[in-house]
Every structure is written in structure tokens, then in C-alpha cells.
């Protein structure tokens, strides 16, 4: 049963009608764009703040302590206080750095997530752009982030930063291959690059249950490659505190450092949303084939809550990785990708194509 009260598209349609009826045409569009832009940016900023808070609480939970609990109710305003402090800090620029590139790098880091946030589906109808090449757009634009890393390390004129950014550049570029191939498995099985169609194809069950072996392999590969893409978890050699004192963003302070900091968490969010959408059905509630009664009961919970639940579970999983495992060395990292993950992904995609052609999935 399709509960239309949970459909956001009618809500947005009514706003659009009101705008076009109140203002003449070009101004209505401009106001619409400004509204969408501001809300997307605000959403991203709030997202960054709340993810930082979540990370600190999750880390504290693993480390047998409490985490922030003084500023605001249960420490919720802690990140706001931190960002305020960072904004008010003196922005020190090293004298020998390349000024233009040094200032450009944080913006590049933040640019990619901002754009991609608009292309992702959050609930039924709640999506800024539903491109027909949605998946391709997301993977392509999120690669701009690596430019930010390389430029920041190079322009800082600091040996530590250079080592860190070179390591990170090699890492991100390598793991994009496996991540891309894992995404391709789902695209092959759904037959489309458009997010809404992929989610529609999961109306009778999430891909992780329907497509069996190739999708499981692709899911594991995607989670590993995703944490490596965002320089997180056991793959955070680029900012390995105990070795290079913060790697590629050593020389940044104040608001520029805040950009790097937030960009990492928003990138994490993007990877998790991709995993949740492609493999776990996005905002689609858990349906099992034709079991009408079960599906109707599952539909009562609004899709937005399904989405938040899946995304939260995966975020906690990825944070769990970071606080449990030691770090991999750079050569072990690259070995993992080129000698293990990439061959597995290649074989997997052939397997997925085979299964799709023969129809041997649910």
C-alpha cells in the first residue's frame, strides 16, 4: 500500500504553486533556487555538526567514558561551541606557502559534498535533483575531494603535509575503482542509474536480500572501499596523528581546518547514504516479496524514519571500525586494494551480470 501522506512531492508542489502564483516567473524560480540552496547548505552544516557529536559519543561509549555532556542538554551544543571557537581563531597562513592554492584547498574539499548532497534521495519525493544519471553524478563529483587533499598538502610547503597528501591521494584514487565496481553491481541488477528507479526496484525487497552472493560481496567491498575513500577508520594514515601530526591539514587552523574536519564527516555521510540506498533500499521500507500484510505494516513507519535508521546503523558500524582496528601501513593499504579487492570486484561484476541475465535472483 502506498501511503501518500508520506509523499513529500505534494508538499513541495504546493510551495512551488504558491511561489509561482505570488511572484512573476523568473523571480519565483530565483527564490526557489535560493530557498533550496540555503536549505541544502544549512542541512549539510547541521549534518556535519551532529555527526561530529555522534562520533564523540560513540567513541566515548567504546572507550568506557561518557563523552561531551556539559554544553547543552547531554552535550548536544558541544560541536556548536567548537565551531564557534574555530571561527574566531586567528587564521595563520605559513609565510612560504602558495597563498592562492593554500586558500583554495578547503573550499574544494567542501565543494564536492555540498553538490552531492543535492543528488541523494532522503525520502519519498525529498530529493533536490533526481538526475537520470544520479549514481554516476555522485561518484564523479565526489572525486573532486581528492583535489582538495592533494592541493592542501602541496601548497603547505611542509614535508609532513606533502607525505600525508601523497599517501592520501594514492589511497583515494585506488579505492574509487573498487567502490565504483561495487556500485556497478547494483546498477546492473536494477538496470538504471537513476536513484528513484533503483529504489523502486527494491519495492519487493532490498537488494541485499534479493540479489544474493554478488550483492553481499559488493556490499562488503563497498563498505571497505568507502571507509578508505573518506580517509577514515583503519585507513586514516593520511592524518595519522601519531606519525605525522595531522598529515595534510597540519598547517591549517581556524575556519579552514573546520572545513576539512566537516568535509570528512559529510563525505562519510554520503558514502553511507549510497550504501543504504543501493544495497539496503534507501527510504523503502522492508518489504518481503508479495507478503501484503507484512508490507502494509512496514509501510506505516514513514520512509524518512527507515532512511534515518539505516543510515544511523551504518554510521555506527563505520565508526566502530575506526575505534577498534589499528591502522594499515600505506603499502599494505594499496596491496589490499590492488591485489585483493580489485580482482574480487571484477569477478563479482561478471557474476552479477550473469545472474541478472539468467534471472537467478529474487
Amino acid at each position, binding site marked *: 500500500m502506498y501511503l501518500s501522506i508520506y509523499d513529500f512531492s505534494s508538499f513541495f508542489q504546493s510551495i512551488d504553486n504558491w511561489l509561482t502564483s505570488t511572484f512573476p516567473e523568473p523571480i519565483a524560480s530565483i527564490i526557489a533556487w535560493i530557498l533550496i540552496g540555503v536549505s541544502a547548505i544549512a542541512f549539510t552544516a547541521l549534518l556535519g555538526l551532529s555527526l561530529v557529536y555522534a562520533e564523540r559519543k560513540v567513541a566515548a561509549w567504546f572507550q568506557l567514558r561518557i563523552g561531551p555532556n556539559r554544553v547543552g542538554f547531554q552535550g548536544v551544543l558541544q560541536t556548536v561551541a567548537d565551531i564557534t571557537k574555530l571561527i574566531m581563531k586567528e587564521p595563520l597562513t605559513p609565510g612560504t606557502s602558495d597563498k592562492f592554492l593554500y586558500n583554495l584547498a578547503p573550499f574544494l574539499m567542501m565543494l564536492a559534498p555540498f553538490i552531492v548532497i543535492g543528488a541523494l534521495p532522503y525520502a519519498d519525493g525529498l530529493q533536490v535533483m533526481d538526475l537520470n544519471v544520479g549514481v554516476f553524478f555522485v561518484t564523479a563529483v565526489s572525486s573532486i575531494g581528492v583535489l582538495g587533499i592533494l592541493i592542501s598538502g602541496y601548497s603547505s610547503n611542509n614535508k609532513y603535509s606533502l607525505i600525508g597528501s601523497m599517501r592520501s591521494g594514492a589511497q583515494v584514487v585506488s579505492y574509487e575503482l573498487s567502490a565504483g565496481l561495487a556500485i556497478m553491481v547494483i546498477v546492473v541488477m536494477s538496470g538504471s542509474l537513476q536513484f528513484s528507479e533503483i529504489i523502486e526496484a527494491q519495492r519487493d525487497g532490498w537488494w541485499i536480500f534479493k540479489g544474493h552472493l554478488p550483492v553481499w560481496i559488493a556490499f562488503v567491498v563497498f563498505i571497505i572501499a568507502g571507509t578508505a575513500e573518506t580517509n577514515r577508520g583503519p585507513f586514516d594514515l593520511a592524518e595519522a596523528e601519531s606519525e605525522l601530526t595531522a598529515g595534510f591539514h597540519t598547517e591549517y587552523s581556524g575556519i579552514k581546518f573546520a572545513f576539512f574536519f566537516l568535509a570528512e564527516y559529510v563525505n562519510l555521510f554520503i558514502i553511507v547514504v549510497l550504501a543504504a540506498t543501493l544495497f539496503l533500499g534507501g527510504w523503502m521500507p522492508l518489504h518481503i516479496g508479495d507478503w501484503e500484510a507484512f508490507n502494509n505494516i512496514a509501510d506505516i513507519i514513514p520512509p524518512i524514519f527507515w532512511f534515518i535508521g539505516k543510515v544511523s546503523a551504518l554510521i555506527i558500524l563505520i565508526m566502530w571500525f575506526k575505534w*577498534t*582496528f589499528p591502522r594499515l*601501513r600505506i603499502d599494505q593499504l594499496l596491496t589490499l586494494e590492488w591485489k585483493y579487492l580489485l580482482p574480487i570486484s571484477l569477478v563479482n561484476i561478471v557474476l552479477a551480470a550473469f545472474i541478472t541475465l539468467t534471472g537467478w535472483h529474487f
Partner: protein
Amino acid sequence: MEETIISPDGTQEYFINMGPQHPSTHGVLRLVLTLDGEIIEKVEPHLGYIHRSIEKMCEKDNYRQIIHLTDRMDYLSAHMNNHAVSLAIENALEVEIPDRAKYIRVIMDELTRISSHTLWWGVMGMDLGAITSFLYGFRDHEYITEIFEETCGARLTMNYNVPGGVMFDIHPNFVKHVKDFLADFKTKLPEYDTLLSGNVIFLERTKGVGILSKEDAISFGVTGPAGRASGFSNDVRKKEPYGIYDQLDFKEILYTDGDTYSRYKARIDEMWESIKIIEQLIDNIPEGDFQAKTRKVIKLPKGEFYQKVETARGELGVYIVSDGKMSPYRMKFRSPGFSNLSALDRMARGGKIADLVAIMSTLDLVVPDIDR
């Protein structure tokens, strides 16, 4: 400035300074690395940032005051440093210390060893990236430190040994707390071991990394768990027993691989042995005096006296040259960290920077011990 050397394929070596303030050099140690890409060509330690001229100060202080200085050398084995100096003075004066004092000293020694090794375990995990292990290691370190605080009055620089025995009797709750601690720790230690040594990433980072052969270990004088992991058997508690170690039943841990993983395993196994030693002693502390009578002002007879003690890092040697006065003529501390550090260059060559961090964390350096 140093010359840059250009190798045949056109690349240059460059120098990186892991400066005195760095999250993973445990203490103020400055390392100048010569690197070729990521491969380390040479490691050169620069010492002296925490040199407090303890040996010169010992020439002016009398013997009872020197004990307070020795706490601060290797502060994680503070009790064992005091033990070494007290034993040297007692052997010189030929004073017989009561059994109760001997038992208490050995129990405190082994507790110090466990606390030093749990702290090392926590820091080792943190250096390799598993930051959570830092807090787990400190939790147990805290437990022992609270036991010390109850009995000795201080958490880190205990000052509990005096020439003749221990300064005051143990607290009435001491035996109970130690037994509770042992019961708790015996469940935690297998968990800790599995958390790190059961982890594939950790094994890849430590196996085959930083190999030190047995001849090198003997030549560089690397003692303690780091030397024993290379097959160099010189546990002072077994070879030249002091206190009541000759009456106790424990093994000397020896491994032959000499890599970082063996050094890690050697320390974990040492913790198990220490637990065994404490269990043999904790129920049998004899009654009696806790301090033998010594003169108020101690004057050692003329001559030289050397006392070796096994600290958590290796063999600590106390060498007193006395000319009959109230303060020693020359006091030399043979610190284990000093010799262990000299082998760092040999172990780290040919590896990467990440390997250097792993090697340094298994050497378990405490820089005040090196600089004195």
C-alpha cells in the same frame, strides 16, 4: 646544512625531524630521520632534552636523599629503581633485611612491572591506531596506582624503599586489594591479548618488522623483554637473583624471532609470569619487622658496589664508588633505555616510517631513563 645525496635514479634523500614534541616518541626524544621516499636510511637520536644531571646531584646528596632522585629516572618502574639503590647500600653495609620487607618489596616490584606493561600495551595500541586500547590499558594502570596510593602515599614516585627495608608497613587492605586486582586482571589480560594480537591488521604491522638478531642484541646491550625476544637470555631475576627471587617459581620468557611481534608477546607473557609470582607471595607475607635498624647517617665503606635489578625495561645497574664519606664519590646508573635506544638504528633501517613507530613502541622507551 648537510649535503643532499642524489642517488642514481635521480631521487634525493631528505631529512625529517621527529621533533622533541611528537605524539609517539614517548617523552622528549628527537629523532632525525634520513629518508628516501618512505624508506628509512638512518635514524639518529638526539638526547638531552630532559637531562637533569642526576649523577652529579648524587655526589652532593647523602645516601638517603639519593633514593628520592632515582624515582624520577624511569618513572614507570619507580619502585624498582629505589630497590636497586637500597640493595646496593645494604650489600655494602652488609645489613640483613627482614623477610617481611623482602616479600613486600618483591610484591611491589611485580605490581610495578604489571602497571608499566599495561601502560605500554595501551600506548602501543594507540601508536598503531587502535586508540581505544589506550583507555583500557590506563584503566588497569589506575587500579594498581590506587593500590600504591593507599600503601605508599604516592601514585607515581613511590619512595617506599629505604636502606634497611620499606618505609612503613603495608596498609591493612593491601592484601585484599591485590587479590581483587589479580582476579580482575586475569579475566582482562586474555581479552587485551586477543584485541590486538588476534587482529590481522596488527599482525601485519608487527610480524617481520624491526628484526634484531641475537648477536646484535648482545652487542648493543639490549636487555629486558626486547632483548629476550631476540633470544638473549639475561633476566637478572634468574641469573643473579636478589631479594627472594631465588625461592620463587617463574619462567624466563624467551623468543627467537627478534621482530616486533615477539617483543610484544614477550611483554604479555611477562605479565602472566608476574601474576604468578604475586600469587605465590601474597598469602604468605611473614610477620615481623618491615625495616632493619640502620644508622641515621649512612656511610658506606671504601670501595665499589654494583647492583643489578630487572626493571620493566631491562637491566638497571647501580654503580657506587665510595670513599667512606656520607655521599658517594661517583654514582653511575646503567639505564636499560640507553642501550635499547642504541639498537633503534639497526632495527629501523630499510623499513618505513610507520614501521619506526611500531618499533619504538615495542622498545618501550621512557626518555627520562635515557637522559637521567
